[in-house]
């Protein structure tokens, strides 16, 4: 049994999908008209999909964001018109949990940087489950500085449980690595567009997400801490993660309302992996539009707008920042 709620739910669907496919095949091979039967099954299938995925709770979205088949950074990056990967922090190591390099997005040269989890166990081990070490954040800072030097817009893909919490990461000053990354993004003299495509976990995610325009997939999550971590910290009980997920306001809708996210990319019913092709295309379109718009600004305008954006975020007075749906 998978520990992913969504994967579990999908298991029933597989049987239905198989039956529809079989009927279609039979129908094509026989003179018998089975179109009514097929249509009936398909209607039922769609109804089940709507029932299962039509309205996802925050906790369900957490599982959707972690779905093993959900498109990862490389699924987006490979759909750029071209990608030339750059490696290393120039000091200590190349961290495979961060992938970055030059790319063309529609005929526009950009620097793209993404957090990359594995798409199977082996890759997950190699990529440390998408949790960057300090070397990964230092690679990120280096590439962002290079982009700033060469006047290339920066595009980032955020998909991490969080920064790596291991011993050597502490020994190599994880705090410093993230802090410098934040400072680099805050001061880069080029447009920055970030897309939260999966799990956006804590400061380790934010390190790649200080941006002039932040996109977020409908079922992605972006959170001050993982629900499990939050529950452990506040209630010493990780099993209360579902409750934490609900309280943390980590959904795209909530964050759009708070102004943390600027634009939401709608996902197909059942999640991005059910039509990855389409989701990636629309995401890249949205990134492209933002980069195009931001490219008309001077570096000074960009920096001023970026400063003001984050300056206003979470301003203390604004009662209007409260999510409309939860107002009492």
């Amino acid at each position: 049994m998978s520990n992913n709620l969504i994967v579990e739910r999908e298991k029933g669907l597989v049987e239905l999908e198989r039956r529809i496919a079989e009927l279609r095949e039979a129908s094509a091979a026989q003179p018998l008209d089975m179109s009514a039967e097929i249509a009936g099954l398909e209607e039922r299938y769609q109804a089940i999909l709507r029932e299962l995925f039509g309205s996802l709770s925050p906790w369900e979205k957490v599982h959707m964001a972690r779905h093993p088949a959900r498109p990862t950074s490389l699924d987006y990056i490979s759909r750029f018109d071209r990608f030339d990967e750059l490696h290393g922090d120039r000091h200590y190591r190349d961290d495979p949990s961060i992938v970055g390099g030059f790319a063309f997005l529609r005929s526009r040269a950009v620097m793209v940087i993404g957090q990359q989890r594995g798409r199977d166990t082996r890759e997950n081990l190699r990529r440390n489950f998408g949790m960057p070490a300090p070397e990964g954040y230092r690679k990120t800072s280096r590439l962002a500085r290079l982009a700033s030097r060469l006047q290339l817009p920066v595009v980032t893909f955020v998909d991490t449980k969080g920064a790596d919490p291991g011993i050597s990461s502490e020994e190599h000053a994880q705090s410093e690595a993230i802090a410098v990354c934040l400072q680099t993004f805050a001061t880069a003299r080029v447009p920055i567009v970030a897309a939260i495509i999966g799990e956006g976990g804590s400061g380790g995610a934010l390190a790649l997400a200080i941006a002039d325009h932040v996109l977020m997939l409908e079922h992605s999550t972006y959170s001050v801490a993982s629900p499990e971590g939050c529950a452990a910290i506040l209630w010493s009980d990780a099993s209360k993660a579902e409750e934490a997920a609900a309280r943390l306001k980590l959904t795209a809708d909530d964050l759009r309302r708070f102004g943390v996210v600027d634009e939401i990319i709608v996902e197909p019913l059942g999640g991005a992996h059910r039509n990855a092709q389409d989701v990636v295309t629309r995401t890249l379109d949205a990134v492209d539009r933002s980069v195009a718009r931001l490219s008309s600004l001077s570096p000074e305008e960009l920096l001023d707008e970026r400063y003001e954006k984050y300056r206003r975020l979470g301003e203390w007075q604004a009662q209007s920042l409260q999510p409309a749906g939860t107002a009492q």
Partner: protein
Amino acid sequence: MMREWLPSRRARETPRNDAALWVKCPKCGEVLYRRDLAASLFVCTRCSYHFRMSAYDRIASIVDGDFTEIASEVLPSDPLQWSDKKSYQTKLKSDAENSGLSESVVCGFATIGRFPVALGVMDFHFRGGTMGRVTGERITRLFEEARRRKVPCIIFAASGGARMEEGMLALMQMAKTTAAVARFMEDGNFFLVVLTDPTTGGVAASFAFQADVIVAESKAMIGFAGRRVIEQTIRQRLPDQFQTAEFLLEKGAIDMVVDRRELKEKLVRLLEYAVREPVSP
């Protein structure tokens, strides 16, 4: 704020939850008379254990005289309408009562060794020093005002990280403070941080490690991930030394470890290099 602010504020002494006259040192077990402990800046006179210090005690131990607080009117609210066992509002109120603070940081201007400085002091007694919107807002205003005044900024960090109960709005304070720090530093101003026990998570990973000079108090626990999280991840106990100030010094992450009783003198020395023009008394 008037000169009298100090004695009145100082009436509340660390550790706050212990109303007794005697305090037991958690490290060596020595029983210390509270007034002696305060006189030694909350450092155990026997084993040099550094008790966690309240913001106003800290300020009093560092500034020459007056301290003009800013942004004290910026007060926390409850953007997520958070409630678990208690509501967030209730937690804020009870922390405020226990700590005498309205948020996890006190910001203002003072002179230290006759140098005008911007001073931000975090306090672990308020929500574990976590950074909420108001923490970020106050620190941001401090850096913005320090930039206008062209004075150095000193921050005493003490934090469990970003505050859960304000969700992503808390995390965004990392971005906001970072941006303010960057502008402040780009103008050539001096930023010094003192890491006190404990400094972790979103505070460590934003403004704290962006400073020109990073001082840490003896034995302070400093890191990104919490000790428990790491132990759970690696499934083994960490050595005691791990994530201490002394450990970080060896690992090259910080500039120096200082005993609290020598801290003010050290800060003044450092200001003398960076500023070179103390005001006349």
